């Protein structure tokens, strides 16, 4: 996990996510709005098993570099946005623990909401990340998988 003294903080790591830390980190004196998104694992599933935990697989360098592209695209669309932090867990994640956190600060709330939603949508569509659902006696890759896109191919919002 690396903290930039800049306006971006990207981390893909096995460490437990701390949403509060991200919200605190994005706070800036000239920003009246902070929007955060936490993606947690639902206990329901498309499979007929009760999910105990998840396993997230990726190549950390590749995933972090793709998240940085998401942030760059968000800044191009909403230049007023100040700080953006995006963390994604890898490895084993218990159900109900956040697997991904996005935090965005901005002077006004409209662009903070828009940028946060863009970031999580783009992370899901453009970052190499594979979720395995683990139940009592087995496991399987998530059925939700979608073709990976480039951030430049996403619909303008």
């Amino acid at each position: 996990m690396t903290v930039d003294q800049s306006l971006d903080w990207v981390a893909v790591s096995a460490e437990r996510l701390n949403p509060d830390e991200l919200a605190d980190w994005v706070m800036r004196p000239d920003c009246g709005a902070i929007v955060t998104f936490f993606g947690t694992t639902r206990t329901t599933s498309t499979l007929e098993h009760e999910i105990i935990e998840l396993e997230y697989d990726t190549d950390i360098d590749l995933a972090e570099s793709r998240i940085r592209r998401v942030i760059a695209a968000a800044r191009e669309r909403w230049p007023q946005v100040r700080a953006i932090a995006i963390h994604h867990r890898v490895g084993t994640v218990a159900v109900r623990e956040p697997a991904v956190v996005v935090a965005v600060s901005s002077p006004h709330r409209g662009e903070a909401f828009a940028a946060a939603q863009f970031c999580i949508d783009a992370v899901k569509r453009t970052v190499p990340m594979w979720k395995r659902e683990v139940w009592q006696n087995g496991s399987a890759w998530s059925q939700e998988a979608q073709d990976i896109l480039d951030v430049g191919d996403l619909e303008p919002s």
Partner: protein
Amino acid sequence: MSQVLLLGPAHEAAGVRRAEIEGDTLAEVMAAAVTRFGPRFAEILAISRLWVNGEDAPADQAVGPSDEIAVVPPVSGG
């Protein structure tokens, strides 16, 4: 000879995460990978994107030892 990074389900199907595979183009490297890793890998490959150094690349792209090819199956992050 290129570095190949096998991600998620491609990693599982191939049994390895990284491999060095022969071939002068992306298509040749992938043909050799199918021979080496078998039909389950071929199925995953059919639905995957291929990146060379992090960018989408056409099948006829020339590749060499300094290039990293990634096999990127459909994603399910977050």
